């Protein structure tokens, strides 16, 4: 049997590399499956190596304690981003490799029935298909490992370019990755074929005698069950997200597209033809429509990667943009001030005007000097320091780098609309800040860059916000002016009624960079949007490209067995142009259906986004990046259209009668 599997593969590989010798369609199918495995392995390998490299990154030699903490904070962010990239890569590789392999098996039902007819047993068919998957998975991994290195250098470049990692950051090769890459390729290929092989092995030998391979059952129980399980998962995320707070809610909402897309894909054999038939078009002799009715499984398989692509890209960019917009709106609503001054905390006894004392309310000389400027009614000066917070004990003990703000509790409450929440904050105590991540009661161990403060009670908290911010708010007495020297400070200034704004600005300009709150909010929003877009590009860019290649693959594989069908249409009296037009119309209808279904999966994400933003900020926010969404739709239509055009032109090039010969 092994001999047969080898022979079969040798044959198929032969034709893959020598398409001109005939059997080239089988070759294209193999090439498609191989490409999906290669790129999937490359993407997973690259993301994993980058993640490990970032996680083990050491701060540069000679960095100060504060710089070390900032560095760790930065790498933590990069690691969590790469974690998302890796998660996406694993999902996409799993989905695209397994669905492509399953599709190639589905498309060969007639060949498989023929093997049964000449004496092949069910076990032999299963072993043949699994052997093929094993070999293709191995080959895909062998090609995927070097491709992964190229992908890695591109991903690392992108992350350096966007300053998510320090300059000079490069993914590092690790020997054990070979095991992961080969394991990924083989496992996903075999897993994809496993179910399809079981079903294909049950093919009845008589099916070989039907002219057009009998269509497999449209929906199976296992397919419906998978669909329901993932639908349940998506619903659970949508329901729980609003209760997860800003960070948890965002993470859950951003994860909705995956189960939602899988659920939609599971029901695609029912949904795609149904929707595709509603797409308005007229074509030659209604052939496209008839094909949609007839080849439900093929339509569904062609639509599957596109549904996932649309769900992921539209769902995540929409969610990212909405959360960013919600944070921007929330920040604008919560900020009560006229001017914002960005400065650096002065060293004690340094530039502070005379008459101020080092123990001024905000602990910085700057605050006191701002407060004394004529026309200033009130000021909240907030000085930022990196710190390390340890929570829990025993196995749950966890240390993370947080951002700490030294504030004047009363002024902070006024400037940020948190009311009396911080009234009790004084002395040796801290409050949980708007950035979350710190328990809102109990005690934490707090370490500043230069000093260990030991256990400190958390006596107050402000609500966590969509836009984030400091994790910890501390009263002025806790940190000495020496420790604050050189730290960035931001002062929210409220003018007295009737004050001369221009004059106040001119005076404040001597202390730091002054902007109106409106300008500052605008700049903050721009920065937030730009960061969001960069993250989306890193998280979705290569994954989206891979899914798009999956789309092309499925169109090519879907067309692979249609030469005869096209030839039959032509000998029935259709011109070559009509056949190609009919194929294009069919592709257009399937693409439109896939776009709509992908939008449905993305829509589930948007429900979670609306509920989460409503629960966190009080205002349900949905801000969809329409240009990107339109771009995805246009690219999808263009790519499926072009691929269909090329495959159908190629399939109709030979004289039709030559295609009607058997075998």
């Amino acid at each position, binding site marked *: 049997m092994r*001999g047969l599997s080898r022979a079969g593969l040798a044959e198929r590989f032969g034709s893959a590399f020598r398409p001109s*010798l005939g059997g080239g369609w*089988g070759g294209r199918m193999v090439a498609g499956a191989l490409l999906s495995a290669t790129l999937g392995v490359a993407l997973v390998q690259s993301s994993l190596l980058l993640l490990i490299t970032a996680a083990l990154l050491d701060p540069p030699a000679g960095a100060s304690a504060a710089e070390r903490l900032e560095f760790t904070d930065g790498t933590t962010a990069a690691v969590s981003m790469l974690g998302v990239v890796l998660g996406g890569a694993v999902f996409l590789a799993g989905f695209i490799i397994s669905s492509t392999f399953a599709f190639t098996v589905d498309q060969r039902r007639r060949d498989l029935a023929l093997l049964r007819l*000449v*004496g092949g047993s069910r076990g032999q068919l299963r072993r043949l298909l699994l052997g093929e998957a094993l070999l293709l998975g191995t080959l895909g991994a062998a090609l995927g490992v070097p491709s992964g290195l190229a992908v890695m250098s591109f991903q690392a470049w992108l992350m350096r370019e966007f300053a998510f990692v320090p300059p000079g950051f490069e993914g590092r090769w690790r020997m054990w990755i070979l095991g992961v890459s080969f394991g990924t390729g083989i496992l996903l290929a075999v897993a994809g074929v496993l179910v399809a092989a079981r079903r294909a092995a049950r093919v009845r030998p*008589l099916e070989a*005698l039907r002219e057009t391979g009998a269509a497999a059952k449209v929906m199976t129980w296992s397919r419906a069950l998978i669909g329901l399980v993932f639908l349940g998962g998506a619903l659970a995320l949508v329901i729980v997200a609003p209760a997860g707070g800003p960070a948890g809610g965002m993470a859950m909402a951003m994860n909705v597209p995956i189960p939602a897309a899988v659920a939609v894909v599971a029901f695609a054999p029912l949904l795609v033809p149904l929707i595709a038939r509603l797409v308005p078009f007229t074509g030659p002799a209604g052939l496209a429509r008839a094909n949609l009715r007839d080849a439900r499984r093929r339509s569904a398989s062609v639509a599957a990667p596109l549904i996932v692509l649309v769900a992921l890209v539209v769902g995540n960019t929409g969610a990212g943009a909405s959360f960013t917009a919600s944070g921007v709106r929330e920040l604008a609503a919560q900020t009560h001030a006229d001017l914002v001054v960005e400065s650096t905390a002065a060293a004690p006894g340094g530039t502070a005007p005379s008459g101020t004392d080092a123990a001024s309310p905000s602990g910085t000389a700057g605050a006191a000097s701002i407060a004394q400027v004529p026309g200033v009614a009130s000021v909240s000066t907030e000085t930022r320091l990196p710190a390390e917070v340890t929570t829990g004990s025993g196995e749950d003990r966890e240390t993370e780098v947080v951002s700490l703000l030294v504030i004047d509790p009363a002024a902070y409450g006024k400037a940020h609309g948190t009311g009396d929440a911080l009234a009790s904050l004084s002395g040796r105590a801290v409050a949980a800040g708007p950035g979350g991540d710190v328990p809102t009661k109990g005690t934490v161990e707090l370490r500043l860059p230069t000093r260990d403060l030991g256990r400190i009670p958390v006596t107050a908290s402000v609500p966590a916000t969509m836009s984030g911010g400091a994790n910890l708010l501390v009263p002025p007495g806790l940190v000495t002016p020496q420790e604050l020297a050189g730290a960035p400070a931001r002062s929210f200034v409220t003018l007295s009624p009737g004050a001369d704004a221009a004059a106040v600005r001119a005076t404040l300009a001597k202390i730091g960079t002054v902007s109106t709150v409106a300008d500052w909010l605008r700049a903050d929003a721009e920065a937030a949007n730009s960061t969001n877009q960069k993250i989306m590009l890193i998280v979705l860019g290569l994954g989206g490209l891979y899914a798009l290649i999956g789309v092309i693959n499925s169109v090519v594989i879907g067309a692979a067995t249609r030469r005869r069908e096209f030839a039959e249409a032509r000998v029935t009296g259709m011109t070559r142009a009509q056949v190609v037009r009919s194929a294009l119309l069919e592709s257009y209808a399937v693409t439109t259906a896939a776009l709509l279904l992908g939008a449905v999966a993305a829509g589930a994400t948007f429900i979670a986004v609306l509920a989460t933003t409503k629960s966190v900020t009080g205002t349900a926010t949905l801000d969809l990046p329409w240009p990107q969404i339109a771009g995805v739709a246009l690219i999808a239509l263009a790519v499926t259209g072009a691929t269909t055009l090329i495959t159908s032109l190629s399939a109709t090039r030979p004289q039709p009668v030559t295609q009607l010969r058997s*075998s």
Partner: protein
Amino acid sequence: MTTMTMTGAAVTLQDITRVYGRGQAAVRAVDGVTLDFPRGSWTAVMGPSGSGKSTLLHCAAGLERVDSGRVLIGDTDITAAGDSQLTALRRTRIGFVFQSFNLIGSLTAEQNVALPLRLAGQRPSRADVRATLAAVGLADRVRHRPRELSGGQQQRVAIARAMVTRPEVLFADEPTGALDSSAARTVLDLMRAMADAGQSIVMVTHDPGAAARADSVVFLRDGRAVDRLTGASTHAVADRLAAWER
């Protein structure tokens, strides 16, 4: 028509029935047929289209289950045979030839012919495979793929594939249906020579010329065996068929 079951028949059908559909839509494609196909002899099955010829052949070859009755290949009752038993049967004791050749497009003639042996776990000798191809007159086409062969040549590869396991019975469903008259003649000559050498053949056809080459012809109508001719000429077969089609 009722025939006594003779021991030693290549294939025996005892009162077999095959019904498609249910209730009002039920069609009795084969309706209580009892027949045997003698060993070492070529039997043609004829009848108007829709008379149940192909279904009868499929049932006789174990490709379709009968709803009632018994099917024997030699002395083996395959009526209730499981999938693996039927697989073993297809590997060793029966061969198939069909109107549409059904070769595997990516395999060469030689590889197509060797396939059943490989599936049976044997290591086919190249000489055996080539000899089988030579026997159907294709010694010079071993490395060609089906697409590079004419219809008649493809059908001869299919016959070689069916014969390479030296089956007890060769089932042929319209083997000349897709061929021009000269290619059809070559294929029929080949089958005649095989039958003369002792091969049992059961062939479904609608072509009186093809049926006349067989040793005997069974006529079906509405799923029932209605007549049997032995050693008839093309003319006689055509006349009888026309009579039953009326």
